[in-house]
């Protein structure tokens, strides 16, 4: 990999710059370098090399000083990320310390960030579902946001492209609302998950329980061996980084692949301040970076720029990219930059018990977690008093009843000899939220971070539609559970602040009309054609799928288009 040592403009000039090395930036870098473009990949955090920089990956539970718990002093430094399910003693080095990276919460918003090479691709939940036209057509059909400028057919080949390389497990379920992909073998449902699937099939039309689809190599293909990755070993310790490369991350997959082309320059500790716009040329010419350690300002130049800083930081960079032509942020003639931010609503869970199937339990671990329930509300037509709907996770496991009463020899024996209890079942909702102008991010006029960059001010909240949807999920799943013969059915509202879903999207939405959107159908800024946004910021609506797979597909598709346009001399 070339080192950046020289100070000359030539040394700081590339064909392409990619801002951010997370799940979408890794893909942008892979695709651009494979096409032969000299690409600078900027990452604000430290480098994390595959395997070498996974310090906890092979530790046994008793090798953690606090057996996995995060000490209170560390939680105090990171009160927001401490609320994230994946923030534990074995993973905390892949999350930032909130206090070092302040932002303003006009309304409560848990912004979960991982500032390192690979970003949150190291710690994601690895669920991967394609969108269908029921999702892309949603805003136009139901009258919110703006129409998506693409349809399923535009992105389908790119889903295939990224799925084959990343390695996605799943079944070909043949559902119109959740298109099949290029799947490796699925992780089958267990006894009670299958039982529930059959019960739901019997009791409902158009409701399906399928094996969760996930970015796990259940059966490696040559393309995975070529990446140095092997079969998932069912450790379910993924967020420590996987020594087998069993799940997809930028670190295990796209970044080393890009490095092998000889065209990649990876520069960690590079905090992007803004994108440089040239008034004469009428396009972006580079990126202004603050070195995270020295706080020195450095400029890098390129013909095309991919912004993959993660949804809200991409908004921040564009809002902070001020020029005479764009006084309100790059490409922001419509004054919509930062607006129409949306997320996924995870506010409720439904759980229960099942007394049957006691002849079975599970052995080993399921890396994708169990089952998935594709959205069944308002899919084919509007049928409720709220817009859109929710998908859900569903899983079952045999409980262990340990008698931990008393003291002494009896207690010790009981602890070492737990009995198998009933099956416990659980589901969690993943609701679509409606993007609105009133859910937005802006730059604070006064407060800056340690690198002199304005702090992001976030104003995002639930609305009445979300509340109705939560209620519907609770009612429907309680009924589905009860009809299946589950007992002790309990609803639990979690009251999570937006953000903790880690599916924040929008602010730089795609659309056909430059007056009502920022990006065109190629993820290209309408008004600054050599800048592409292919992370969560580009999302016009959120639908209910876990979003990362769609960001990967957008990145690969936009990189292909950008390269073609570059060759034609259009950029």
């Amino acid at each position, binding site marked *: 990999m070339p080192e950046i040592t020289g100070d000359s403009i030539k040394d700081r000039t590339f064909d392409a710059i990619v801002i951010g090395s997370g799940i979408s930036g890794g893909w942008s870098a892979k695709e651009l370098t494979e096409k032969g473009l000299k690409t600078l990949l900027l990452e604000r955090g430290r480098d994390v090399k595959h395997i070498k920089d996974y310090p906890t990956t*092979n530790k*046994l*539970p*008793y*090798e*953690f*000083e*606090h*057996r996995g*718990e*995060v*000490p*209170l*002093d560390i939680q105090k430094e990171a009160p927001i990320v401490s609320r994230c399910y994946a923030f534990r003693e074995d993973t905390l080095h892949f999350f930032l310390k909130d206090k070092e990276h302040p932002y303003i919460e006009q309304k409560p918003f848990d912004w979960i960030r991982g500032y390192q090479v690979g970003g949150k691709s190291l710690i994601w939940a690895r669920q991967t579902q394609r969108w269908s036209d029921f999702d892309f057509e949603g805003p136009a059909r139901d009258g919110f946001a703006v129409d998506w400028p693409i349809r399923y057919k535009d992105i389908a080949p790119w889903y295939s492209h990224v799925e084959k390389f990343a390695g996605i497990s799943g079944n070909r379920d043949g559902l119109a609302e959740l298109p099949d992909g290029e799947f490796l073998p699925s*992780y*089958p*449902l*267990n*006894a009670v*998950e*299958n039982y529930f699937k059959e019960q739901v099939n019997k009791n409902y039309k158009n409701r399906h329980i399928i094996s969760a689809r996930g970015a796990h190599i259940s059966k490696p293909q040559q393309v995975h061996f070529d990446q140095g990755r092997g079969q998932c*070993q*069912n*450790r379910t*310790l993924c967020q420590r980084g996987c020594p087998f490369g069993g799940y997809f991350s930028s670190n295990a997959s796209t970044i080393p692949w890009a490095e092998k082309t000889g065209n990649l320059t990876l520069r960690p500790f590079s905090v992007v301040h803004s994108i440089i716009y040239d008034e004469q040329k009428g396009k972006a010419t580079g990126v202004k970076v603050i070195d995270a350690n020295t706080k020195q300002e450095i400029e890098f130049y390129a013909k095309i720029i991919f912004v993959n800083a993660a949804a809200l930081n991409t908004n921040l960079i564009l809002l902070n990219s001020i020029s005479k032509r764009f006084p309100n942020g790059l490409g922001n003639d419509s004054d919509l930059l930062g607006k129409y931010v949306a997320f996924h609503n995870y506010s409720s869970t439904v759980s229960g018990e099942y007394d049957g199937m*006691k*002849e*079975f*339990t*599970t*052995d*080993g*671990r*399921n*890396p994708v977690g169990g089952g998935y329930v594709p959205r069944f509300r308002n899919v084919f037509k509007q049928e409720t008093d709220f817009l859109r709907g929710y998908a859900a996770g569903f899983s079952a496991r*045999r409980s262990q009843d340990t008698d*931990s009463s*008393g*003291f*002494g*020899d009896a*207690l*010790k024996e009981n*602890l*070492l000899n737990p009995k*198998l209890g009933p099956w416990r079942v659980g589901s969690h909702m993943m609701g679509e939220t409606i993007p609105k102008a009133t859910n937005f991010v802006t730059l604070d006029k006064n407060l800056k971070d340690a690198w002199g960059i304005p702090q992001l001010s976030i104003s995002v909240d639930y609305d009445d539609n979300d509340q109705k949807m939560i209620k519907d999920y609770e009612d429907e799943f309680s009924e589905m559970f009860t009809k299946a013969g589950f007992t002790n059915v309990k609803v639990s509202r979690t009251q999570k602040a937006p953000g903790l879903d880690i599916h924040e999207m929008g602010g730089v939405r795609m659309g056909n009309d430059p007056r009502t959107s920022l990006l065109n159908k190629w993820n290209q800024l309408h008004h600054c054609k050599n800048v592409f946004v292919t992370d969560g910021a580009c999302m016009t609506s959120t639908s209910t799928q876990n979003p990362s797979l769609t960001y990967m597909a957008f990145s690969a598709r936009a990189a292909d288009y950008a390269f073609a346009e570059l060759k034609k001399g259009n950029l």
Partner: protein
Amino acid sequence: MKRRSAIKSLVIIAGGIAIMPSCSTEPGKASIDLKKININADQEALLAEIAETIIPKNNKPGAKELNLHLFILKMVDDCHNEEDQKAFIEGLNSMDKLAKSKYGSAFAACDPKQKINLLNAISKEEGDAKGATAFLKIAKRRIIQGFMNSKYVMTDLKKYELVPGRYNGYFPAKQA
């Protein structure tokens, strides 16, 4: 090299993990390095007796041998808030008094049956024993955690698998 091995032997193994010993050579101090709570050697010894009562040595090692009392201290120091820490120390300090009023001798000097009866009285919040309930709850929770997650249990008794390499959703319960 000699110095290295000397330092190594000074590390205390509690349930399978090294805990830094106290830097202090002062007599009467706790044997591990604690940042927030103040524990002296007597309190540590008393906690060891209580821990051993909860998980005693029989044909398998008990709490003292696995240094689980030190694990409790480490967790109370790092993972509990001030309120818990205060209740923990107050409860610990009341143990000898409770034992004396009930059985006429300090906790360590009680016979095994008396010790267990006292812990039962505390967990049932009986009379004066109520003052130690919060302490015992924390101690018991942490000792169970430390025991079940100890190297001994996870390697010799209930083997923890770092790399299962399989998933079977229809595993016969009889074989589990």
